[in-house]
Structures are given as C-alpha cells and as structure tokens.
C-alpha cells in the first residue's frame, strides 16, 4: 500500500529530525544538528534492510517516490518565499559578503574533488560514523 511508503518516509524524517534536535541540545547549539541528513541515512539504511526482507515492494515504494518526484516543485515554492527583497535591501556590504562566500566555495569544489581523489579511501576502515 502506498501509505506504508509515506508512513515509512514520515517515520524516518521525524526520527532523524528528532535526533538532530537532541544532538543540538547535547552540544549546546541552538540549531538542528544534521536532522535531515540523519533522516536520509535512516531511509537508506532501513530502506535497504526492508527491501532485502521483501517488506518494501511495488506500491509501498511509490509512496516514497512520489515525494521524491515533487521535490522540484516544492523547491520552486521555497524559492518563491525567500526574502529576496530584504536581501537586496541589505546594501552593498551584505551583497558583497554573500557573493564572496559563494564565489570562493564554487572555486574550491574542484580543489576538494582532487584531494578526495588522491586520498586512498579504502585504507581507512576504523572510522565508525553513525
């Protein structure tokens, strides 16, 4: 049933964001620490487990796929409610500060990709990142 997929997605999202909140409290940061990321990892991990055991099939998958497919329209709706006017009214310093940060980050993408390629990632098995 499709609703099983949606419910499963809801479960992962809620648990992930809840863990993110707890981590924030634990570290003392007034922000959600990686909630969405943790939820994604949960979905990947639990999803493949359920898949292997035959719990996740056909219709159930569609419940997750639908939300994945409406992602772009949701992002468009998100773009339409950014405070673009307020941002531009912030003046030249705000514009320049934001722009500088973005330009540097763009320029660093190929640099870090190269570092990552050199790194022999296979010889690093002791890392256990939840």
């Amino acid at each position, binding site marked *: 049933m499709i609703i099983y997929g949606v419910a499963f997605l809801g479960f992962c*999202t809620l648990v992930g964001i809840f863990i993110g909140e707890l981590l924030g409290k634990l570290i003392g*940061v007034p922000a959600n620490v*990686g909630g*969405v990321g943790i939820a994604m990892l949960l979905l990947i991990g639990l999803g493949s487990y359920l898949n292997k055991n035959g719990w996740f099939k056909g219709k159930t998958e569609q419940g997750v796929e639908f939300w994945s497919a409406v*992602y*772009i*329209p949701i*992002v468009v709706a998100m773009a339409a409610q950014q405070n673009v006017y307020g941002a531009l009214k912030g003046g030249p310093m705000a514009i320049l500060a934001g722009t500088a940060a973005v330009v540097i980050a763009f320029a660093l993408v190929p640099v870090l990709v190269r570092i990552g390629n050199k790194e022999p990632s296979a010889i690093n098995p002791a890392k256990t990142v939840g």
Partner: protein
Amino acid sequence: MYESMMKVITGYGLISGFLIVGVTMWVSYWISNTFTKGRLHGSAIAILLGLLLSYVGGALTGGQKGVVDIPLLSGIGLLGGAMLRDFAIVATAFGVSVDELKRAGFVGVLALFVGVGTSFIAGVAVAMAFGYTDAVSLTTIGAGAVTYIVGPVTGAAIGASSEVMALSIAAGLIKAILVMVMTPFVAPLIGLNNPRSAVIFGGLMGTSSGVAGGLAATDPKLVPYGCLTAAFYTALGCLLGPSLLYLIIRGIVG
C-alpha cells in the same frame, strides 16, 4: 464573487499552491524548450521565476516572505515551507548509492569545515573593507556569510547590535539566492556532475535552501548527495561561530 474566490483559494491553501506551482513549472519548461532549446533546465527557470516573484512580493507588501505575503499566493508558503521541504529532501535519498556516499565521506566532512571557514573569512574581510573594526560586528557579519541562520544565532550569543544582525541575515540570504541562481551555470565549469562532487559542493556551500535549489536546477539526481552534507553545515556554523571563530577574531582585532 471575488470574496468567494478568495475564500476558496486561501481556505484550500496547499491545493492552490499545487496549482500555482504546477502552472509555473509548465510555463518554465515551455520557456526552456522554446527559447533555450532545453539547454537551461526548466527547473532552473522555475526557480528563477520563483525568486523574481518573491522580489515583487516583497516590494509590493514590504513583508519578509516573498510571494507568501500576497494573500492570493499564501498557499505557496505551505508547499514550500520547511516541513514539506525536508520531507521531500529525505525522500530523494531513496535510491542513493551507499558506495558513493562512503567514498565521499571523508572529503565531505573536510568540505564542511573548509566551507564554514572560508565563508566566514570572506564575510569578515568584506566587513573590514567596509570599515567595521570591532570583533563582535566582524564575527556576526562573517557568520552571516556562513548562512542566514548562523549569523543571527552568533550575533545573539555575542551581543551584536540589531543593525549588524540584519546585515548578517541579508548576507546569508544573498548567499542562498546566488547559489540557487548560479549553480546550473557554474556546474559544468567546476565538474559538478557526479555524486562525489555534489557531496563536496553541499559541504562547501552549506546553505540548505541554496543547495536544494541549486542542485535541483542542475541535476535532480545530485540533490540527495549535496543535501546530506549541507544538513550538517548550519549546525557546525552555529557551533563554531560564537566560540572558536569569535575568539580568533577577538584575538586578531583585540
């Protein structure tokens, strides 16, 4: 008649949101196909249109939520709000390649630290160029260049003036908007076309809405990889901003 229409549209906000965004998508793909022969993604055009409309919304109403402040379009607020956005981002993780994630794991974490650090330095440098000299203002504006959440969180923690906090939020918003707008154009130049570079991109940029929008406009397949690392960025910024970064700046400017 007008009243009844408004009642339906606002009462069924989420549904109106589906309709409005659906029409926007259709128009965007039409523009993409007829004017750019599909070279500029329809989704990129849709996001640009959204940002443009939100500017118009802000200019018309003086509100802070773009289009949502126009009553007729308030349903978009539900559709594009944090709840459904996060729900859909998590859904994109379905079908992610675990091996790709593992391969990019270490550089992803490195990208997070480099991203927060360089954005902060960029912000501080610009603030200095504009004549700010006190550690609190410099740190707050630098934190704003990290994300528009890190800015005010840091500012509140170290006691920045509300004027400086507003500036830091504006800097963060500019960053988010620029990432959405520029990513599809810059992507071919920086090799942003595979999961590993998307993980790094997410860690370097960090602004969740910017990364979510920018990758959607570039290649939807890359979205989960970028968003996964970006999810940790704001928290890392909030952690480092009022502590380590502030202490460093205070050490430098005294």
